[in-house]
């Protein structure tokens, strides 16, 4: 299908909306009626046709507007994109991975022509036509990582692998769930995860690191993570916390369905061929609660998950203050019926809400 790109905003007047297509393919992150941390990795080798898992780098109706929002964030704060000097090669690896993947997966939107190191990249949605020399930074308007990630949805952490650890040595971070690249750059896997409660005690990070360090070329992995965000704001950065934080206080029982969003991250992991680095794209999907509950199974389940979530997790994910109001809203969409296993909406088999 040809994607109709939305003209929308993720700030100020918040005109972001999901179409029915986007709602139906939303990556609902709960495979059962409760949630606890886990190393919920699976192979990233496609998925059901039309799902967000199908392509290596999913492009959806929000693409053009998300890239506009990224450019605004970077203009305000260039420190959101940084690469330590030894990471340039990994940046070229990433540029190649994305250009090859997108041109193969979306030939109507992206084209890549290669003649030795003379490359020609066409990005139709963003109106870009760029000829450049692969591995020659002077032939691109930005460094290779910044160049390609200004054209790709999601944040990117580019990790160096050495000393039996992964090091966050480069990245572009404009749609994050409240962490600072500028602060965390240069840290190892355990250090940048240090503020996450409970998970270290559960051995999550040790197991995750072991898994990630063994990811091989051509065998990427993925997992989902989630949090809650008031208003469809991509840039929920700590840098701007004092600007978006007050919006959390604007929820009312009347506007909560429209303003409160479930924020889901599709995290993928690809080995990079020349640098042996690992790229960790973190793609953010937002959905208003009022849209989410149009899927009966998701309404039932989200109510149960949020209601029963351990307090530390609600605190860490930053919605403690609004939790009661969210649970109250969602309870209207939970009739107590059992739900089917797995994340899929199962609209044809799950019963409608019984009222």
């Amino acid at each position: 299908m040809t994607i109709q790109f939305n003209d929308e905003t993720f700030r100020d007047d918040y005109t972001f909306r999901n179409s029915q297509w986007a709602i139906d393919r939303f990556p609902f992150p709960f495979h059962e009626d409760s949630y606890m941390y886990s190393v919920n990795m699976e192979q990233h080798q496609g998925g059901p046709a039309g799902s967000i898992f199908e392509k290596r780098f999913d492009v959806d109706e929000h693409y053009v507007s998300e890239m506009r929002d990224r450019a605004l964030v970077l203009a305000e704060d260039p420190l959101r994109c940084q690469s330590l000097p030894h990471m340039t090669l990994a940046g070229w690896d990433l540029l190649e991975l994305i250009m090859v993947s997108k041109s193969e997966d979306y030939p109507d939107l992206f084209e890549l022509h290669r003649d030795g190191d003379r490359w020609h990249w066409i990005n139709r949605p963003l109106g870009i036509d760029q000829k450049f020399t692969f591995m020659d930074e002077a032939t691109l308007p930005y460094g290779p990582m910044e160049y390609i990630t200004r054209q790709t949805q999601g944040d990117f952490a580019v990790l160096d692998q050495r000393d039996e650890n992964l090091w966050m040595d480069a990245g572009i971070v404009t749609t994050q769930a409240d962490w600072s690249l500028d602060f965390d750059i240069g840290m190892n896997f355990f250090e940048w995860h240090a503020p996450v409660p409970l998970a270290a005690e559960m051995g999550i990070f040790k197991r995750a690191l072991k898994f990630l360090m063994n990811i091989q070329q051509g065998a990427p992995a993925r997992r989902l993570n989630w949090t809650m965000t008031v208003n469809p704001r991509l840039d929920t950065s700590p840098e701007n916390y004092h600007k978006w934080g007050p919006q959390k206080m604007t929820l009312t029982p009347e506007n909560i369905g429209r303003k409160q969003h479930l924020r889901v991250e599709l995290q993928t992991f690809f080995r990079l061929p020349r640098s042996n680095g690992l790229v960790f794209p973190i793609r953010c999907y937002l959905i208003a609660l009022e849209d989410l509950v149009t899927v009966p199974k998701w309404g039932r389940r989200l109510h149960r998950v949020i209601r029963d979530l351990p307090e530390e997790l609600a605190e860490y994910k930053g919605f403690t203050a609004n939790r009661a109001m969210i649970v109250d809203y969602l309870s209207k969409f939970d009739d107590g019926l059992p739900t089917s296993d797995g994340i899929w909406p199962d609209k044809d088999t799950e019963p409608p809400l019984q009222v």
Partner: protein
Amino acid sequence: MSTFEFPPSITSRPVWGKLEPRAGKSHLMIADAEGAEALLKLAQADGSLMTKAHIMYFPGETGDTYIGKLEELAPAQLYIGPSYEAAVPRLRRTLAGAHMGLQVYLTGTESLMGQAMREATDAGIPHTAIQTEHRGSVARRMQCVHCKGITENVMTDPFVCSHCGLNLFVRDHYSRRHAAFQGVCVDAEDPGNVPPPVELYS
């Protein structure tokens, strides 16, 4: 007593050790204020270190208290500086001229150790090979996550950013690259609702 037992914390927070003599071709010792006590103890453990030692010392508010005693150690080089900042070019020059077999010892406040550690690691010395010992003030060097400004000598939580004026709470999350802990706006969600400042570790 100039020592302090830091409570257990998250994995990004540095854990300071105790200085002990190590075999080396030369010894670079950087200390501020009560950090001098740790150097005196180190010299007691192995006086022969001092013939190959370069001490850089910033007495700060301790004034002359330890200077005479450090002189008595007769280190190969003794530099007494008015501030760490003033000594950074000297430190960089020293590290640039360093050879294999250099041992680095850092002692004193977390701010001093963190910043000197950064210089040493930038010069190619792995941070795990550098010895440290905390002495003296428990004040923190804080980076404001909002304006990126550094506020030195933070003793309370919350505190006011010396650059942008926001009220920040003190996190244990620490960046070796910034040699600083992270400060985050305490009243972001409810502007004006700032809890009264409490002394750190009280």
